[in-house]
């Protein structure tokens, strides 16, 4: 007779289920930046809308816990949670959408590191995305808890970096890239937002051996389209994001061809 063993473990079961929840998602793109205010949310939301327009199955996850705002772009005005053996993302404008906004509305969120980590694990463990071609994640700026947890929990996520041509932004991108590279994260490239036709970002990406994914000039018409995704898709901004989507899908196709060959 074998001896009865009493194993004391402190296992967080949410960490086990997390990979199962993301299993049927083909491509995960985290939209990140060094600084805030460079247009991550708009790039992430519009990229999601553009991919959905092309009949890809797309999810958009807002991981900017201190300042979630994708719902503003999408025009959601009422926090809603749909429960069914987990939490089902909201369907809006052809996307599956998940954000703390769905739970907390516009309430202030005074959260410290451990809380952020727990919230992220909880959200990833209970959200039922189902089959997706793309999950686009809107990250908070910088290299804080959410980014560290992204690398820990979803190491296969690829990172799309958004920057303005300002040296203030580029200085922080340099730090971000350095961190991502030391951790072996795949960087899709850099998109230049609010561009003013200077080559500073082109040179910057060349120096850092990063893929330059194109420039988006400041489009003053975008602000009036917030909350109206159909109108947003008619802007010049969205036209540039379509080019970005072309480039990303090409990159992914090339990567999968290389893998298969």
């Amino acid at each position, binding site marked *: 007779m074998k001896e009865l*063993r009493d194993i004391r473990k402190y296992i*967080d079961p949410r960490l086990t289920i997390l990979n*199962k929840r993301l299993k049927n998602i083909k491509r995960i793109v985290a939209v990140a930046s060094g600084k805030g205010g460079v247009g991550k949310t708009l790039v992430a939301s519009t990229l999601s809308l553009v991919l959905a327009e092309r009949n890809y199955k797309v999810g958009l996850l807002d991981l900017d816990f201190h300042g979630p705002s994708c719902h503003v772009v999408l025009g959601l005005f009422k926090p*809603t949670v*749909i429960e069914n053996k987990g939490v089902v993302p909201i369907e809006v404008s052809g996307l599956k959408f998940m954000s703390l906004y769905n739970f907390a509305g516009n309430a202030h969120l005074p959260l410290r590191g451990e809380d952020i980590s727990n919230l992220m694990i909880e959200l990833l463990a209970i959200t039922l995305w189902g089959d997706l071609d793309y999950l686009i994640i809107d990250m908070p700026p910088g290299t804080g808890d959410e980014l560290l947890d992204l690398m820990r929990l979803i190491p296969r996520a690829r990172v799309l970096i958004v920057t303005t041509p300002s040296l203030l932004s580029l200085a922080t991108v340099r730090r971000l890239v350095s961190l991502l590279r030391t951790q072996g994260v795949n960087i899709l490239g850099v998109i230049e937002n609010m561009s003013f036709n200077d080559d500073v970002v082109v040179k910057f990406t060349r120096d850092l051996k990063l893929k330059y994914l194109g420039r988006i000039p400041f489009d003053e018409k975008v602000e009036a389209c917030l909350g109206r995704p159909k109108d947003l898709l008619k802007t010049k901004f969205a036209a540039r994001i379509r080019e970005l989507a072309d480039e990303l899908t090409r990159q992914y196709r090339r990567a999968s061809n290389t893998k298969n060959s």
Partner: protein
Amino acid sequence: MSVELGETLHEWALAEAVVDTIKEFMSKGEISVIKSVKIRVGELQNIDLNIFKFALNELLKEASLEGIEIHIEKDEVMFKCRRCGCEWRLSDISLEEEELETIHFMPELVHIFASCPSCGSCDFDIVKGRGIWIEGIKGY
């Protein structure tokens, strides 16, 4: 927050997480026959234990693991204020039904609704009593 209910609640998602963890634990070969599992459930998550136990039993059956004894212990919440050091419990504050519902999904969102009963600060730690943990496994 409005909640639309499907056929089953998110207690199922948590039960599924526990059962998958048990399966993974067995597949790693650390133990081949599991007799009992001890689960600690944080008071803050406000889990409906009847639904949770029912879901666990159903999912264990599906995984051909029926017969494993499940022991569930509740872990009382303890908060500690970072400003004045005051420690308090969930029963020391009053929360609305809808607030409890929000916390049920995301325990950390208690930071929206609660503040230190001594100094009013919203900067506090959840010292214990949040999520779900597998604390002990007995078997051969």
